[in-house]
């Protein structure tokens, strides 16, 4: 280097050079990292779904009193509530178990304390004189001098008035709706006393009950209210026999099912209703826990076994979660198994020291409290997303209240005891259905258009047509969706016959016109060669107009008057105004430019000497096209279709606006669908951050990402190969 007389580079310039290299290097890597981050982040959000469940002992304290009737806690498990037989409600620190507060509610001892169904804070207590009274426990967060304190209150409900149960009451249950209060008492002879207080507010007195007695067999039964208080479950704990009683009103109860939970002649060993009491979990001596759910049948709603889980030892105790459909089952070896019904998953297990007398989940199901003779134990549970399993995402699931296993997507509802249905299959089906019909519409037009534009169009016209169609690619899809939903859909519905017939009429009309045109003097023909497309526009518009204009006569001719009715009666096809046909057309228009542009490039790039050779050998233009040009360009056309498909799969606004967005699985051209993309757009803004629903929506985004990424990559590789091949030809 020194041999040359190079000018010396000043330090400043050298520094600028280095800094630029560093900045560009760092910036470039950062941008590329950001792109990789997208995928990584989606993964990262989804990952907790697959996190294993864990349960660990948290605290273990000795607690001598043996009269604990019920255990509860506040939402975040900062305080534990004990309802005791001496009429006291104790509030204790969950880890040290120190007494923080006590409410002395009654001087008279209490026999039972039950949570009023379906509330989570109101207790019904029965004292030794068989009077039932009600109180509510509330926890309020307050800031005093900027320190957070949790205040407990125990308030009597119904102005501390009571309901007198018969003196021979063995067992009772209470149901509370917004207006009404229902009480059922099972007497020694087995008969059930039903009482109802209508339109009773929390600060009203309990008076004027409507009462009625139902005859029922004697025995050691347990009686519970079912969903919305409209059912009574009467289950014999010794034999497993049960009656399902429908109670539309207290005065007109009706036994709808008398059957047995027993299996192989053996009585079940444990019962527990699941959240919302649409199902009962039944534990057996064989170690099986079977879920019986209220399902529709020919004779009305009855209990049906819908799923079972197998454990090793006889199941003796069951407890269910307060906000989800999960439960814990304790077997004869004192092993507790955490499980979830919807996903049919046994999550984890832990060994207890002894069989607990009481077993209670905290409201968020992140703590489990057990109470046995002289001690109270708390367990910490990490179990954020038990609803998810491979089967619950993709397979058929038998949900509560369904006649059979189904694919269903229904992520939320107004009810708190709702069983979320997270099957991705109907949405995947909808996504593919929408893309499929769009491709059926787009491929013939786009590929044929590309063939003509690349091969036969005059260069002058091509210079206009190609950018013109490409501008269509930039057309906002929200506009296509708007036109499809509000303008096209009603037109198609009113002119269904003509729209369907257009598929046949337009090509035939075009061929007819072409035949006539071919008889024109050759001067005209040669002058117009390459401008066929321009001539075809008015012809096409004319035939479309004619077909639309004669909609009614055509409908009379082919569909005896009305296409919709005909299809429904003859083929059983239902018709939605916003359906797959509309999507096919609108989304087809959105992907035509993409397919057209890439396919046209591929066809245009076919080396000239191949074409010349073919023509020179006497092949006609069409033969050359089909056997030489298309064959050579076929990988390019294939890749164009792949990219178009990728676009159709992820398109959001058109589907959102031009279908009803119902997640049904039906290939019917005249019904709608719900796609991944539309579903995300609809549900994401309402989804609570980091909930299972939120993470599943991310999973959908990731699935979309992978589908499109895969298709695009394949297309890209095919195109690169083709480029090399053209170079070698």
């Amino acid at each position, binding site marked *: 280097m020194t041999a040359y007389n190079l000018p010396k580079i000043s330090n400043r310039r050298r520094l600028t050079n280095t800094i630029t290299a560093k900045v560009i290097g760092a910036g470039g890597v950062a941008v590329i990292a950001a792109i990789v981050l997208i995928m990584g982040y989606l993964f990262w959000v989804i990952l907790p779904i697959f996190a294993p469940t864990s349960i660990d002992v948290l605290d273990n304290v000795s607690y001598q009193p043996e009269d604990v009737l019920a255990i509860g806690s506040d939402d975040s498990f900062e305080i534990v509530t004990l309802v005791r037989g001496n009429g006291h409600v104790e509030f204790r620190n969950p880890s040290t178990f120190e007494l923080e507060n006590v409410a002395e509610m009654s001087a008279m001892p209490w026999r039972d304390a039950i949570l009023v169904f379906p509330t989570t804070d109101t207790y019904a207590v029965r004292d030794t004189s068989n009077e039932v009274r009600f109180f509510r426990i509330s926890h309020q967060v307050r800031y005093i001098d900027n320190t957070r304190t949790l205040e407990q209150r125990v308030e009597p409900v119904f102005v501390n008035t009571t309901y007198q149960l018969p003196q021979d009451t063995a067992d009772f249950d209470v149901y509370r709706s917004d207006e009404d209060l229902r009480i059922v008492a099972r007497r020694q002879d087995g008969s059930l006393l039903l009482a109802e207080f209508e339109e009773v507010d929390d600060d009203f007195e309990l008076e004027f009950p409507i009462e009625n007695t139902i005859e029922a067999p004697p025995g050691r039964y347990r009686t519970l209210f079912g969903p919305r208080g409209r059912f009574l479950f009467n289950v014999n704990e010794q034999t497993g026999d049960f009656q399902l009683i429908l109670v539309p009103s207290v005065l007109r109860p009706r036994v709808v099912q008398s059957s047995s939970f027993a299996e192989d002649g053996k009585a079940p060993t444990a019962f527990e209703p699941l959240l919302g009491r649409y199902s009962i979990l039944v534990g057996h001596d064989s170690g099986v826990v079977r879920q019986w759910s209220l399902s529709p049948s020919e004779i009305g709603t009855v209990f049906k076994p819908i799923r079972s889980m197998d454990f090793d030892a006889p199941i003796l105790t069951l407890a269910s979660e307060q906000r989800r459909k999960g439960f814990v089952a304790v077997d004869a070896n004192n092993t507790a198994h955490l499980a979830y019904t919807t996903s049919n998953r046994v999550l984890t297990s832990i060994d207890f020291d002894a069989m607990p007398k009481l077993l209670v989940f905290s409201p968020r199901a992140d703590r489990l409290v057990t109470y046995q003779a002289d001690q109270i134990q708390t367990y910490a549970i990490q179990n954020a997303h038990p609803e998810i399993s491979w089967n619950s995402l993709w397979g058929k699931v038998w949900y509560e209240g369904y006649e059979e296993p189904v694919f269903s997507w229904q992520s939320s509802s107004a009810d708190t005891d709702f069983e979320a249905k997270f099957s991705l299959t109907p949405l995947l089906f909808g996504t593919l259905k929408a893309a499929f019909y769009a491709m059926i519409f787009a491929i013939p037009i786009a590929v044929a258009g590309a063939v003509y534009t690349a091969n036969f169009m005059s260069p002058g016209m091509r210079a206009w047509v190609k950018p013109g169609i490409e501008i269509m690619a930039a057309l906002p899809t929200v506009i296509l969706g708007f036109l499809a939903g509000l303008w096209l859909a009603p037109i198609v519905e009113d002119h269904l016959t003509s729209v369907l017939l257009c598929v046949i009429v337009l090509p035939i009309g075009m061929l007819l016109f072409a035949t006539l045109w071919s008889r024109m003097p050759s001067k005209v023909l040669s002058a117009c060669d390459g401008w066929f497309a321009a001539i075809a526009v008015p012809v096409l518009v004319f035939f479309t107009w004619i077909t639309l204009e004669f909609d009614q006569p055509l409908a009379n001719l082919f569909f005896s008057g009305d296409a919709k009715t005909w299809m429904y009666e003859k083929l059983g096809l239902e018709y939605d105004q916003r359906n797959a046909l509309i999507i096919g057309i609108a989304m087809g228009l959105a992907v035509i430019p993409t397919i057209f542009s890439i396919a046209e490039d591929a066809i245009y790039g076919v080396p000239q000497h191949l074409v010349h050779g073919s023509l020179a050998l006497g092949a006609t233009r*069409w033969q050359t096209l089909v056997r030489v040009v298309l064959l050579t360009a076929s990988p390019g056309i294939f890749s164009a279709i792949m990219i178009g498909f990728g676009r159709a799969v992820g398109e959001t606004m058109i589907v959102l606006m031009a279908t009803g967005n119902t997640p049904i699985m039906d290939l019917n051209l005249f019904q709608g669908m719900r796609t991944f993309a539309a579903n995300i757009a609809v549900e994401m803004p309402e989804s609570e951050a980091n909930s299972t629903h939120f993470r599943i929506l991310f999973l959908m985004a990731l699935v979309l990402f992978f589908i499109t990424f895969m298709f695009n990559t394949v297309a890209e590789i095919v195109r690169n190969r083709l480029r090399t091949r053209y170079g070698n030809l």
Partner: protein
Amino acid sequence: MATSDAVSQDLSLQRQSLLGWWRSGDPWIWLTSAAVAASVAAVLGLISLLAINGLAHFWPSQVMSIEYERFGAKTHIFGELSERESIGRRQFMEANPSYDKPVPATVERWLIKTGNRQANPPDFRWLFAHDVIASSVPQDVVVIERTEWGDAFGLLVGIKQKGEIVESEDLWEEFQARIERTASIREEIDALQEGSINGINYELESIRLEKRRRQLDDIHEFSDLEAKEERLRADYAVIERQVFDLTTQLERDTASLALADGRITDIPISTVIQAWMPNSMSVWRKLGLYCKNLWNFLTDDPREANTEGGVYPALFGTVLMVLLMSALVTPFGVIAALYLREYAKQGPFVQLIRIAVNNLAGVPSIVYGVFGLGFFVYAIGGSIDDLFFPEAKPAPTFGTPGLIWASLTLALLTVPVVIVSTEEGLTRIPRAVREGSLALGATKAETIFKVVLPMASPSILTGMILAVARAAGEVAPLMLVGVVKLAPTLPIDGNFPYLHLERKFMHLGFHIYDVGFQSPNVDAARPLVFATALLLVLIIIVLNLTAITLRNRLEARFRVSIN
């Protein structure tokens, strides 16, 4: 292929028998041409559909007086004909099974906009041509555009001031004068609202936050803040009083309007935006009104749940978001492209990245929206709130969808476009140019800044414009990261720091979705949606055409410069 056409033409254009013509396969070529024709027709059709429906909305169309009879009852209405169509008898009978008169084979039906939503709902109704007994075009029908209840149609019969009838030579002139008076009062009120009241509220909110911040820092000295707060509240009371006085003045006048059925309805002039008599206007006057309406559409705020009025906030939001996005995307896109092409060692790894970047352009936009919501809004925005805005908690500041997150998300969405386009430009610059610069003693940085980048500028610009065009039309991701149907304030206003990046904003595309699909009165909203759609399409087409022309022009210059 163009050259081969000449050859093939001669072969195919020899007069053939019909059978021969069919056998040659030429009919199928016709079919392929029909495919092109269909695509072209679709593009042209779509744009003209938008143009016709969107532009017609602003024309002061004539108001007819129609008397019709149905089920024995006669009704007399004023209204604009907004649609007419023919339906078959069968379809008619299905829709009106209890119709009592003989029905012709095809029924012509008219959609009439009757306005007067408060006095005579509904404001759109279908009439059957054969029900109409009499129709005319009365010269003196007045159309009143109002801030509430939509348009009113009727005959102006009187004006009242504080309930007293006003005697006047020329009622119409009087009416116009009073409309002008209320308009100027309304402007004053708006100025107070937007200027002073918003400013005071903004300052009061900052004081509240400042107090909270001090509490969090364990400082319990608020006297300066409280003094300021008191002063602001005093100012507020004064302005509130002014507004109250103005509002009383505003509500002074009412106009009495006779409806078609003879009822008289009083319309407060405070709600009147403008009034005109379409049937006695000349074409030129109509044209003037048309231009005014068009201008109002672009510059007014929306009214009545977005179904009337203008789209100014949406237009403003779209443009601002796109500007922010391009300010973010261009430097990063260019730097990434420079890195990939000029600095990174070319090899299979860089090739892989290139394919990945290319493919990202094909990833659905909603996926970016999901990413933006999770990563930008919740993760980054949430952390910013924790660090810098603890006083506002639990209300989020940046941890909620907003302008900045929308711009960032769209920047990420469009960065592949800029990278691909810039790289294309960089590839096209001959090696010789770079080597020449280096040989003359320039450093690599100097070569890039003074030679390579200027030569690649057309491609960079093209990439940027294409990115802007794509971003302007995207709606799906924005629904997750910051767009709302009605934003109370614009993201730019007179309160420090003037540009409020955390605010939610309105967007033309979302406006179309929201008004077209979520509004209760679709018939009334539809023309406005068409107009908005046309506006958006025009913006995007203009941007795309600019990109294409710019590329062609600069490419031509560039070619000359290297030869």
